[in-house]
């Protein structure tokens, strides 16, 4: 039917077949691969950023329950609406603000066209949340907290563990102010001074308009912020006093000492302490357990009406007292004044104690031992400076339970085959949509780039494997 056309096409095919393949083709393949490598690295960095950014967004997406009384209280006090937004991921903190538990401060210090204000604090015996605002009065663009410390009235450095967020892509030319919070884990109540001085250093991050302007590269570059920032010369100092009477002796302690068995693993709930800003649950795992328990996925406190207060996901969520004793922090229902309290849980992350090591042969770039197929070594690379080896892992995650949570799985210390200890040079994690399911997590672990004798050994601190069983313990 189409003989003529087919003949013509056949001849054309011959012509095409006779076309020589240029030798240069290999160079083009090479450069395609190199371009791909660069892009993939940039994408990965961006994905890490996205997962951090997503956790920020989460704060703002959670709806605010506001009673009319509370709404009018908020509107009367300037700046309080911003603070309400900063705590609305935590029902307990929201209740604390609603119940006027916040101590308003409103003191500031200004240098280099930047005004740093301490807006207020929410403080109890276990913790202080400090809310601050940075206002741009000049032409600053990407400002972040670089470093800060707290001092008592004698000028002594207060030792406390701190968590705070890093502002990403917050352009101060567009947003004149940044608001943030610092979560401070306090030492014992006796050591909380009447007056605290906050000394903060700020830094300017240079992330815009550098090199290639394509979005991914720019964001990727920003991830290496250590190389692209200026710490500003000034120190912002703000001294404020704390009204200790407002929170002293408010905590309620309940001793439980109740032991439960979950899949043959023994877990003892020692005590529950209810503070206005959080609830601390102390748990001890039996030394003879065959599995190491890493965490409790769904630990929550429930009152007589069935209202649940879950774990603190944004901030300090637990503390290790010893290897076997952990304290978990839950959102507090202190201000609800519940009549009855129950502690509930059903899922525990745990792994056999003889599977806690991941052994890596760096020369071959292979995992030689791992708990199971969930973890995979994707790549062994070297950082730009060449002083660190970057291990890239892929962790298959359980869904949908782990969907929202990303976590590091390795201990910060690793060892070589002779038992020498080393500290990791860095570790980070992010989501990486490998397939449509998209729940897998990528983990980077940087180790010193030296010649190790034999393989290196990483310790697992967290893993998706679980044991399950329902627990309900009456607290009061």
């Amino acid at each position: 039917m189409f003989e003529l056309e087919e003949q013509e096409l056949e001849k054309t095919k011959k012509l095409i077949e006779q076309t020589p393949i240029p030798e240069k083709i290999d160079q083009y393949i090479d450069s395609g691969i190199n371009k791909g490598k660069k892009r993939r690295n940039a994408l990965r960095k961006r994905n890490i950023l996205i997962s951090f950014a997503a956790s920020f967004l989460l704060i703002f997406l959670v709806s605010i329950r506001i009673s009319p009384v509370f709404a009018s209280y908020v509107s009367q006090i300037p700046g309080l609406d911003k603070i309400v937004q900063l705590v609305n991921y935590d029902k307990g903190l929201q209740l604390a603000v609603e119940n006027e538990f916040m101590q308003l401060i409103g003191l500031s210090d200004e240098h280099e066209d930047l005004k740093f204000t301490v807006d207020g604090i929410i403080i109890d015996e276990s913790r202080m949340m400090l809310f601050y605002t940075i206002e741009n009065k000049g032409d600053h663009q990407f400002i972040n907290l670089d470093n800060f410390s707290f001092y008592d009235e004698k000028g002594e450095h207060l030792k406390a563990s701190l968590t705070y967020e890093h502002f990403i892509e917050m352009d101060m030319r567009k947003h004149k102010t940044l608001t943030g919070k610092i979560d401070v884990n306090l030492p014992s109540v006796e050591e909380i001074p009447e007056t605290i001085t906050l000394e903060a250093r700020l830094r300017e991050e240079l992330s815009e308009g550098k090199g290639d302007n394509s979005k991914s590269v720019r964001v990727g570059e920003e991830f290496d912020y250590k190389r692209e920032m200026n710490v500003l010369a000034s120190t912002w100092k703000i001294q404020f006093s704390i009204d200790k009477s407002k929170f002293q002796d408010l905590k309620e302690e309940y001793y439980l000492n109740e032991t439960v068995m979950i899949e043959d693993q023994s877990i003892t709930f020692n005590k529950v302490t209810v503070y206005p800003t959080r609830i601390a649950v102390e748990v001890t795992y039996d030394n003879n357990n065959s599995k190491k328990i890493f965490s409790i996925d769904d630990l929550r406190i429930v009152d007589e009406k069935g209202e649940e207060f879950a774990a603190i996901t944004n901030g300090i969520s637990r503390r290790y007292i010893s290897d076997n004793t952990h304290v978990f922090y839950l959102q507090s229902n202190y201000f609800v004044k519940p009549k009855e309290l129950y502690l509930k849980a059903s899922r525990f992350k745990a792994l056999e104690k003889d599977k806690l090591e991941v052994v890596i042969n760096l020369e071959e770039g292979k995992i030689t031992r791992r708990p199971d197929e969930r973890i995979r070594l994707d790549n062994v690379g070297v950082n730009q400076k060449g002083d660190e080896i970057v291990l890239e892992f892929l962790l298959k995650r359980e869904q949908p339970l782990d969907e929202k949570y990303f976590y590091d799985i390795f201990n910060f210390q690793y060892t070589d085959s002779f038992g020498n200890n080393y500290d990791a040079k860095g570790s980070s994690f992010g989501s990486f949509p490998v397939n449509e399911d998209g729940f897998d997590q990528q983990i980077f672990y940087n180790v010193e780039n030296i010649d190790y004798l034999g393989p290196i050994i990483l310790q697992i601190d967290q893993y998706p494997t679980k044991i399950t069983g329902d627990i309900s313990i009456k607290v009061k």
Partner: protein
Amino acid sequence: MIIRAQEGDSSAFYLLIDQNKEKLYRIAYSYLKNEVDSLEAIQEVTYRAYIKLKNLREPKFFDTWLVKILINYCNDELKRLKRTILKELDISQASESTNIVDRQIILEALDRLDPKYQTVIILKYFNDLTIEDTAKLLNRPIGTVKTWLNKALTDLRKTLKKEGEANV
């Protein structure tokens, strides 16, 4: 090998592309008709395949998958080129035994076809793909591909006729 490449082994990936490079180059050439653009196509396909490799569920489809990426690229590229200028056929290296002018007419006629018709012709006649394989590659039922092929040849005939008349 494909699995090794998927796990991030870039030398495995290089070998995979190397095995396919002649085929890919010829397909690119039948679309783009000159060395420079065809080489660029190879580079771009290598790059796209590299970053998308993890999305490939079935390693056994790797070769077809590469071709698919290439065809998508070439179609986009042709659209872009048509908007600028119609490129001259690069004839410097062609053999003298073939009637180059005729061949140029055919290739240009192919260019004027709907992209999907052009694709089925290129796959079937220049790369010896069966109708079944073409259907698999394009993710369309066999019947559709047959219809396209028929339509493609009809359109080609019309175009060539017009060309013929114009050349008289």
